[in-house]
């Protein structure tokens, strides 16, 4: 566990440095380190004005939003897998993705009529995402006493409904706006600035803390609802708090960066294969691993076909799937 934590943390540092130095304007690592020291009052600025702008105005916020998104999606996926006791659960299970998709589509097609991606988009995506989860909960949450399958099925139903509404909107609009919607759906950190960072930061940090703090409860809940209640866990309350935190954090991230797929499902599984089945270990390591993974994926996304970019969701799947398969074949698979 300690080794895995150290290696993951090391990977995170490497991903951060790569994320800041690699790109069209190359920045020597030693200059970046000097600048970081200068920033906290040790030594003086070693970057040219252009490099300074690139680090602090472009790559910096982009990297921070990547860290937040990776951590949040990974920990939300791990938490969902624990709370639903289902290895296929991911942060989009209860309709967050479909709701955000519909919100964004509405903003792009109906408000701006396909001219641009309006500033409304994140807000409407957020409203759509939270609205979808709330509707799912209202439909499926009441029968949570017996099992969580009803909630998952409610999520499937709500997601299908919202996706069909989104398809309808797209079908009514121009090819240009469909392209914009499509780009948004695939996720990107390109438009992230410090404003976005500060907007989502408080939600995401609080949600991550709640999810990680629920590790022990999720470990007990792996013996099922009745038994965990008999062991003293207020299962329904834990479930509500944890689902609310995961969904809120995911909705905040999705509204900021679009639908970045695969992180939420693959990172917790990779971590589980490395550190075992206890959520007290899986969740904190997923936070670090997810952050490192997404920053690394974003560095790849913006450099391989520079000056244009690959969609982030494509890169996460392209890197994540083979890595997952390799680890899966090396280790005996462990159930959730």
């Amino acid at each position, binding site marked *: 566990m300690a080794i895995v934590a150290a290696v993951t943390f090391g990977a995170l540092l490497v991903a951060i440095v790569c994320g800041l130095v690699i790109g069209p304007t190359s920045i020597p690592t030693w200059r970046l380190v000097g600048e970081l020291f200068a920033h906290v009052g040790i030594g003086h600025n070693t970057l040219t004005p252009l490099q300074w702008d690139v680090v602090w105005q472009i790559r910096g916020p982009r990297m921070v939003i990547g860290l937040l998104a990776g951590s949040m999606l990974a920990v939300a996926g791990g938490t969902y897998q624990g709370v639903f006791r289902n290895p296929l659960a991911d942060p989009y299970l209860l309709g967050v993705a479909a709701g955000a998709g519909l919100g964004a589509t509405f903003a792009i097609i109906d408000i701006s009529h396909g001219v641009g991606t309006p500033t409304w988009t994140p807000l409407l995506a957020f409203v759509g995402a939270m609205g979808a989860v709330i509707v799912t909960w209202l439909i499926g949450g009441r029968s949570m006493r017996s099992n969580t399958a009803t909630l998952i099925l409610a999520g499937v139903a709500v997601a299908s409904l919202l996706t069909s509404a989104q398809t309808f909107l797209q079908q009514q609009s121009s090819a240009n706006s469909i392209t914009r919607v499509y780009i948004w759906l695939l996720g990107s950190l390109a438009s992230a600035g410090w404003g976005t960072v500060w907007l989502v930061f408080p939600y995401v940090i609080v949600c991550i803390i709640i999810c990680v*703090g629920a590790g*022990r*409860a999720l*470990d*007990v809940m*792996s*013996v*099922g609802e*009745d*038994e965990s*209640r*008999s*062991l*003293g*866990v*207020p*299962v329904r309350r*834990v479930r509500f708090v944890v689902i609310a935190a995961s969904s809120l954090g995911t909705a905040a991230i999705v509204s900021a960066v679009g639908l970045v797929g695969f992180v939420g499902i693959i990172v917790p599984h990779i971590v589980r294969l490395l550190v*075992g*089945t*206890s959520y007290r270990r899986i969740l904190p390591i997923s936070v670090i691993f997810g952050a490192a993974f997404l920053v690394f994926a974003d560095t790849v996304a913006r450099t391989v076909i520079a000056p244009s970019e690959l969609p982030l969701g494509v890169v996460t799947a392209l890197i994540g799937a083979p890595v997952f398969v390799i680890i899966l074949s090396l280790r005996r698979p*462990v*159930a959730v």
Partner: protein
Amino acid sequence: MSSVEVRELSVRAGAKELISNVTLAFEPGTWSTVIGPNGAGKTTLVETIAGLRQPSHGSVSILGHSLATMNERERALRVALVPQHPVVPSGMSVYDYVALGRVAHHGLFHPPSVGDRKIVESVLERLSLVGFRDRDGATLSGGERQRMVLARALTQSTMVVVLDEPITGLDLRHQMDMLELMKHEVHECGLTVVATLHDLTLAGQFADRLVLLDLGEVVLDGTAAVVIRSDELAKRYGMNLRVVDVDGSDVVVPVRHEST
């Protein structure tokens, strides 16, 4: 004061009444077993005593405190459950599984204390599980697994333990071992055990008292010897039963109906 008091208890599932107006009291240091045909309401009764089901009428009190006023944690400090079909998550070690019994003591946001760990160790030792402590619980044999589930219930350090068919799926020797272990704990620690069992012979041999339940109502309630030898027993099971004395123990034998 009784350890467990069940007063005018009724439990419904939708329109169907699973338990009707049951009143029972269980004393400290005694083992009581609830018997009855399938669908009699045995599991419903013990699950309600364990706090997993809400009564539609009446109440259950543990050591004088009503279950209805307790939250999950307070309940877990007073009554432990060995379920009929325990969920054993794969990948969890025997030690970690047994230690789950201490969660109600140390809470969800604190690690187990030194005292908690000592209790886990001592239960592992008492139930001969020390050699398995790092094994994946899901890889144990049926008997070992059931011992592990019992160990988890005992680490809860409650005065009341509810066993719902604790020997299902075990071979004869392991059935006896499991019940002997529990009997020993009842004597050593003065526990109150409320169990359900299908095997009438074992029910009679291990319980101080038998409660015969049928269609959600208490039909007979008395010492094992009396209930086992009652004509009512065969009637309620709808079959021929003979009770044979083997070395001073009652053995219940089903007899096939003569075909006509």
